[in-house]
């Protein structure tokens, strides 16, 4: 099984440690993982802003870059969701079919559904509050949406619970949006800030030491608000991959 690692632009530029943790984790699990050179962005920021056509070139590039892989894994739910759900539309416009979209997986679902890891991975003796990102919940189905009458499950929680000593909690309104929304955060600054503050407050109310999730963009938003307002200076932010890889040398 050949696994291609996709590190989206903002993870590359702002959270390289998340990329490193993902890579280490996949290698530690004995997978044949490659990080093809020359990656930039999936095109989601342009598309969510209303310029999906501007993502065409990036989608084509992605497709040729990852053609030979069985799975393409990315530590970012919103980028994964965008690639999986929108690339077929975007590339259809450019007159071709995009088959690798369905083989693109978020790191969490890949580990949970394909690798099916059962642990143990190491110790993480901390209380963590899990941030369920909207696109993870409602597009990639990483957990059961709170709105829907379906059996309850949460793949991120399952993975985190493989860590010894960990206590995983969820905030009240466990999958309400944090207000990031890509372009939304710069176009609707006031509502975005309000929602982020609310989310932060609910995470903090759990008494957790860490806030974790499968999408750095939500975490970047909430952490950025916390860094500015310093309401909860002790709270730390980690991507799920960093926790899962924390015991690996």
């Amino acid at each position: 099984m050949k696994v291609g690692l996709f590190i989206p632009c903002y993870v590359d530029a702002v959270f390289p440690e998340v990329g490193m943790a993902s890579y280490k984790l996949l290698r530690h699990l004995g997978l044949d993982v490659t990080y093809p050179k020359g990656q930039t962005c999936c095109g989601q920021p342009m598309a969510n802003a209303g310029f999906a056509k501007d993502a065409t070139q990036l989608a084509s590039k992605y497709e040729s870059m990852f053609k030979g892989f069985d799975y393409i894994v990315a530590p970012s739910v919103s980028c994964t969701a965008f690639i999986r759900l929108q690339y077929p539309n975007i590339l259809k416009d450019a007159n071709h079919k995009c088959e690798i979209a369905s083989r693109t997986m978020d790191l969490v679902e890949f580990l949970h559904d394909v690798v099916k890891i059962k642990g143990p991975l190491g110790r993480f003796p901390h209380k963590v509050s899990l941030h369920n990102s909207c696109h993870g919940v409602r597009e990639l189905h990483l957990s059961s949406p709170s709105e829907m009458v379906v059996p309850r499950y949460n793949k991120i929680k399952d993975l985190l619970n493989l860590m010894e000593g960990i206590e995983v909690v969820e905030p009240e309104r466990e999958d309400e949006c944090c207000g990031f929304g890509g372009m939304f955060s710069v176009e609707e600054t006031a509502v975005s800030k309000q929602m982020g503050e609310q989310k932060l407050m609910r995470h903090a109310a759990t008494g957790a030491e860490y806030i974790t999730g499968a999408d750095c963009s939500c975490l970047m938003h909430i952490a950025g608000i916390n860094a500015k307002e310093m309401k909860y200076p002790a709270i730390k932010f980690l991507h799920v991959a960093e926790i899962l890889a924390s015991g690996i040398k």
Partner: protein
Amino acid sequence: MSTSHSIAAKKFLENQTYATWHDKTFWGVRAKRDKLAFELPEWERLRDKASAIKRHTLTNIDMYLEMFSEAAEKNGVEVHWAKDAQEFNEIVFNILKSHNAKKLVKSKSMLTEECRMNPYLEERGIEVVETDLGERILQLDHQDPSHIVMPATHLSHDDVGEIFERELNTEKGNHDPTYLTYMARLSLRDEFLTADAGMTGANFGIAATGDIVVCTNEGNADMSTSVPKLQIAAIGLEKIIPDYEALSVFVRLLARSATGQPSTVYTSHFRKARPGADKMHIVIVDNGRSQWLGDPQHWESLKCIRCGACMNTCPVYRWSGGYSYSYFIPGPIGINLGMLRNPKEYSGNVSACTLCLSCQCVCPAKVDLGTQIYKWRQALDSYGVANKEKKMMVKGMDMIFDHLSVYNAATACAHFLNGMGPLVNNGLNPWAYAHKMMKFPKKPFHKQFEDMEKNEK
């Protein structure tokens, strides 16, 4: 980089006590909806059926409209057809005029809001009395609804108390909701008894039988139509459904989704005029709907049954209020219907969505509201209403992401921003409004990876 919605929302959030109360109130309605939905193991199947029935009915609406009007006429009802708001208002006015009706009591109808019927009739000497308590409060205070199901919930009991002191001469300082509701009851009772005509909207029109079905909790639709001599019902053409089997699906979903009740208190079926009353009239309104049916991307917005659940769950609605949207229907469905109505005029609402998609997980008719907003965004540029700064930003992103050398140079230099606090944490950078600028690492991932590979070799 602001829009009409973002400007209004910012203003809304200035009063934090009020905004917090607003969020909590509507989240409470969402929670009640969840509780009721989870009591029915068949809930998701019901939603699937509701969607499929609506898709079927809408794509055969020509046939169902014929059926409905035929059945209603057989019941002795006079059926009118209005191509737009103007025609609708004229038809209603002419019916009233021909019966020499001076006072009209009406139950809640978003369609009459859409057509701005009240001012039209009032200008022509008709006294129009809203009888839904929420609508009545707004009418007394000359406000528009801020929500399609709970139109006056944005007002506190003190606000209502003050309006009633002024308009209904209630006791000074007595703002108890039970007392205020009773005073409204007494005043509306007089209106029911003296009205010449009663009007309702319609939650559903039943093609097989010609029924107008109206769901209320207050009983005001029934009071409006069981006392005056003349009854008029207004219905948007998308509200027609085939028969009672179909209706049984929708009534189970409607109140549970709207307010977290297993049903509304009254589910009333009107087929014909009361004995001794004048002929009943039904006005079927198009006003754009037949055109929207032909929009391959957005026709499914017509499945909406106006429960308001998408508003209650929408965090942007909860934190910005109904009046921050420029279309008369707010929230996710309002953004979409506004764009169908007039994309140039109502594009300022399209920003009011984080694409969290909670709306389409609650929608009882499975309208893919968030996905449609995403699609509307794609079309803004073609209407010439895309935000210029945003467009520039996207072009900038194209420049960086489409050219690896530029991307590599930018990510390599990003950490220089770390030392430029005042330059990036300022009003020119919209990100800095809420956030401290992120700390860029010395080396992006792709550089670190290269280094690691070199070391391993």
